[in-house]
C-alpha cells in the first residue's frame, strides 16, 4: 500500500466562541491519551457515542476510544479516502456508514502490517482491549461495525448492550411499557459491567459510578442551560461551534472536565449576551439545523452561511441531553437503574407534547419547539448518504412540519459525513445562495 498524497488540509475554521476553539486540542489530547494507555497496558474500549455506558467506562477507569470520533478526525483532516478505499478493497460496500468504513479500513490496515498506517491523523488509533457496541434503533453499525472489525482482530471481545427506547405509538403510552424497558436496560448494563470485569483487569467501584453519574447529570443540566442562552438576539453561538462543543458532550461525559467546559461556555455566552455580541454583527436570518450529521470536511459552510447574514442558534443534531430535572425521574438507589430511566425518559421527552397536536410526532414537535423558542426563519438539514440512523425520516419530518404547522423555507443539503468525494463545494454554495434568496423573499413579503 502506498501512501497517497494527502488532499490539502483546510485552514482552521474560525469559531465564534472561545470555548469551541479549545476543542481541537482536547480531541488531540484524548487521542494521545489512548496511545499512552496502550503503551502502559491500560485497557482501551472501542466505544460509540450515545450508548448510555459512558459513566460505566469512566467509573471503571477504562480508556474509551470513540471510533466515530477518529473517523470524523480523518474527515476533518481530509485524510479519510485512503481508509475508505482500503475498506472497499476488503469488500465493504461504499454505501455503508463511512465512519465505520474509515475505521474498518484503518483497523484492517493496522492489523495487516502490524503497525499504524503511515502518517495517521493525530498519531492513529490504537488496538483496543474490548469493543462495546449497542443495540437500539439508532443504527445498525452499532452492532455490525465491531463484529466486522473482529474479522481483523478475532481475539478482541465484543459486547452489544441492548438499549432500546419506546417508540411513539397511537394505541399505547410509553408509560405502559417503560417498566420492562428499564428492567431490560439495567440487565444489559449489568452484563456490560460483568463483561468489562472479565476482560479488563478492572473492578467496578459502585460508589465511584454514582459520583460519575452525578457529574454527568449536572453536565446535562449545564449544557441545556448554556445552549438555551443561544435564544438571545443576536445569537452568541451557532451550530458550527456546536459541532465542536459536541466533543465534550459526547466523548467526555461523566468527567469534571466536561462539566467545567460547559460552565465556561455558559459564562462566556452570558458575557457575550451582556455585550450584545453575536456570531455575526448584522443578523438577518436565524436558521435551525433541523437534522443530519454534518460534513466534517466542510464545516466552513457554516461560516459561508454567516457571511450571508445567516446564523444557526439551534440544532437538533448532537443536542443529546435535556435538563435532568425536567425528566421526571424516579428516585432509585441503583446507579444503573438511574441510567436506564434517564435514557428512556430522555427519548420519551416529547411524547406527551406530540400527542396534543394531531399529526405530530416527537421529532416534528422538537422542530416546532425550536422554531418558536429560537425565533427561526428557516430550516436546513443534511442528508448524509452513508448513515441510515438520523437521516431517513427527515424529508417526512419537513413535509409534516409544513402540513401541520406552517410553511417555512427549508433546504436539504446532500453529501456525506466523511466521504469527500460526495461533496461539491460550488454546488453546495449555489444552493445556499438560492436558499438565502428564498429567505429574503419571504422576509420582505
Amino acid at each position, binding site marked *: 500500500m502506498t501512501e497517497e498524497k494527502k488532499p490539502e488540509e483546510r485552514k482552521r475554521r474560525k469559531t465564534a466562541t472561545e470555548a469551541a476553539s479549545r476543542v481541537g486540542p482536547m480531541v488531540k489530547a484524548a487521542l494521545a491519551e489512548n496511545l499512552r494507555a496502550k503503551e502502559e497496558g491500560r485497557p482501551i474500549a472501542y466505544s460509540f457515542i450515545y450508548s448510555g455506558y459512558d459513566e460505566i467506562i469512566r467509573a471503571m477507569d477504562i480508556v474509551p476510544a470513540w471510533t466515530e470520533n477518529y473517523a470524523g478526525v480523518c474527515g476533518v483532516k481530509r485524510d479519510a479516502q485512503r481508509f475508505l478505499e482500503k475498506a472497499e478493497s476488503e469488500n*465493504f460496500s461504499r454505501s455503508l456508514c463511512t465512519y465505520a468504513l474509515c475505521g474498518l479500513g484503518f483497523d484492517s490496515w493496522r492489523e495487516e502490517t502490524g503497525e499504524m498506517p503511515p502518517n495517521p491523523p493525530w498519531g492513529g488509533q490504537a488496538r483496543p482491549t474490548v469493543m462495546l457496541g449497542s443495540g437500539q434503533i439508532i443504527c445498525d453499525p452499532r452492532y455490525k461495525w465491531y463484529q466486522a472489525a473482529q474479522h481483523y482482530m478475532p481475539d478482541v471481545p465484543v459486547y452489544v448492550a*441492548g438499549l432500546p427506547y419506546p417508540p411513539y405509538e397511537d394505541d399505547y403510552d410509553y408509560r405502559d411499557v417503560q417498566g420492562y424497558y428499564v428492567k431490560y436496560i439495567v440487565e444489559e448494563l449489568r452484563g456490560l459491567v460483568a463483561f468489562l470485569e472479565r476482560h479488563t483487569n478492572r473492578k467496578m467501584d459502585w460508589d465511584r459510578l454514582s459520583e460519575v453519574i452525578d457529574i454527568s447529570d449536572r453536565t446535562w443540566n449545564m449544557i441545556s442551560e448554556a445552549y438555551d442562552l443561544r435564544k438571545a438576539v443576536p445569537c452568541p453561538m451557532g451550530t458550527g461551534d456546536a459541532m465542536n462543543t459536541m466533543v465534550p458532550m459526547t466523548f467526555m461525559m461523566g468527567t469534571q472536565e466536561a462539566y467545567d467546559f460547559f460552565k465556561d461556555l455558559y459564562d462566556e455566552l452570558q458575557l457575550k449576551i451582556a455585550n450584545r455580541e453575536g456570531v455575526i454583527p448584522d443578523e438577518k436570518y436565524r436558521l435551525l439545523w433541523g437534522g443530519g450529521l454534518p460534513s466534517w470536511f466542510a464545516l466552513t459552510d457554516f461560516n459561508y452561511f454567516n457571511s450571508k447574514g445567516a446564523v444557526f442558534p439551534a440544532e437538533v443534531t448532537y443536542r443529546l441531553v435535556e435538563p435532568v430535572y425536567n425528566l421526571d425521574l424516579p428516585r432509585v438507589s441503583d446507579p444503573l437503574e438511574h441510567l436506564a430511566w434517564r435514557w428512556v425518559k430522555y427519548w420519551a421527552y416529547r411524547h406527551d407534547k406530540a400527542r396534543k397536536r394531531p399529526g405530530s410526532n416527537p421529532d416534528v414537535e422538537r422542530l416546532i419547539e425550536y422554531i418558536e423558542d429560537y425565533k427561526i426563519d428557516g430550516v436546513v438539514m443534511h*442528508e448524509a448518504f452513508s448513515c441510515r440512523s438520523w437521516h431517513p425520516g427527515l424529508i417526512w419530518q419537513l413535509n409534516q412540519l409544513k402540513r401541520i404547522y406552517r410553511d417555512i423555507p427549508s433546504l436539504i443539503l446532500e453529501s456525506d459525513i466523511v466521504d469527500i468525494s460526495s461533496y461539491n463545494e460550488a454546488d453546495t454554495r449555489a444552493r445556499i445562495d438560492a436558499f438565502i434568496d428564498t429567505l429574503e423573499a419571504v422576509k420582505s413579503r
Partner: protein
Amino acid sequence: MPEEAGSRGLAAADRYYEDYGSRVRELKKQGKQIIGYLCALTPVEIIAAAGLVPFRIKGDVNEPITKADTEMETIVCPLVRSWFDMSLKGKYEFLDGIVIPHACDSISTTYNVWKNTLNLPYSHLINMPHSTDGPSLKFYKALLNTFRTSLSKFTGKEISDQSLNQAISLYNQNRAKVRELYELRKASPPLISGAEVAKLLIASVSMPVEEATLLIDSVIKEVKQRGGVLAAKPARIMVVGAEVDDVTFIDLIEDSGAWVVADDLCPGAREFFDDADVTADPIEGIAERYLRKIKCGRTFREKKGDYDDYLEERFGHIGRFIKDFKVDGVVLYIYKYCDPYGFDVPAMKSYIESVGAPVLYLEDEYSMSTIGRLRTRIQAFLEVLGSK
C-alpha cells in the same frame, strides 16, 4: 376457496406471483381484514391468531421508483424504497394496517414515514432487540405481549393461547412443506427450478397460511408427477442475501446456464427452515424462533469459543446447504445500503470459501437498470466454475 382446481399447482403459483395480492383482495371483499408487514421477522403467527390475514409487502424490480422519493430518502435500501413506492402507488390499497419489526435501519427508521403516509387504521412497530441473551429474550417476549394486546384492542377480541397455538401449528405445517419442497432441489438436475421455487414462496406469503400450504403441497405433487424434465446444466448455485422478493435475479442466473438449487434468503430457507416450538406460553416459542433461530445478519450473536467457531455459529447453516445440495458456487447478492448484510460480506465470503465453494459477491440496486452488468459478472463466474 374459489377456483378450486385452478388455484393449485405451478400455474397458480405463477399467477399469484404475477398478480401479487390478488388472493387477499378477494378476501378483503369477503370482509377479512388484511395486515401488511415487512420482512420475515414479523411474528405472523400473532397476526393470524388475531383473525387477521398477514400480507407480506413486496417490491417490483421492473417498476421504477417514482413516488417514494417525495417522502422517503434515497439512502434507504432500494428494496424498502420499492416496497414503499408500490404502497404509495395504491398497489396494496386493501390494507387495514401495517406491522413493522425493528429489523434493520432501513426498515425501522422509516417506520414514521410508513405509519403517517399510508395512514392506515392500524400500525405497530415491534422493537425487537439485536442480542439473543437471556434478558433480550425476556424483553422481546414483553414486546410480543404488548403487540398481542395492541392487536386485540384493534380487533376488539382477546387473542387466546389456543388460537396462538393453532396458528403456530399451521405455520409449522407450512414450513414443513417448504422443507419437503427443497428436497426436490437435491436431485441433479433438480426436479424444480430456482425460479419456480422463488415464485411459489413469494406467492405463498401473500395469502393465508393454510392456503399457502395447500398450494405448496400441490406444486410438490405436480413436480413429482412430471418427473425429471429439467435439462442438465453445468453448475449448481446457491444464492445468499437479504430479502429477494422478485424472481428477476434468479431468472438471470438460470438463463446464464446454471440452476439455483439452494438459498439463504427471505422468502426462502432462512424464513422457512425453523419452526416455532409449541410451548406452555405460546409467546415463548414464537420469541425463540424469531430472535434465536432465524439466522439474519440483523441479529447479533455473541462470540463463544474461538473465531472459527464464531463463523460456524453465524454461517454454518450456509456450509450445510452447500454440502447437502451439492452446491458448486455461491452468489452473495447484497443490496446497496443494506447494513446488516453489507458488513457481513468479508466474514461471510471467507467462511464460504473456507468450506470449498467459490463466491461471487454482487452489490445491486434492485432495479432492471443493473441487469446487464450483473449478467456479465454472472457469466464470467459460471465460466470459472465450469473450467474447474
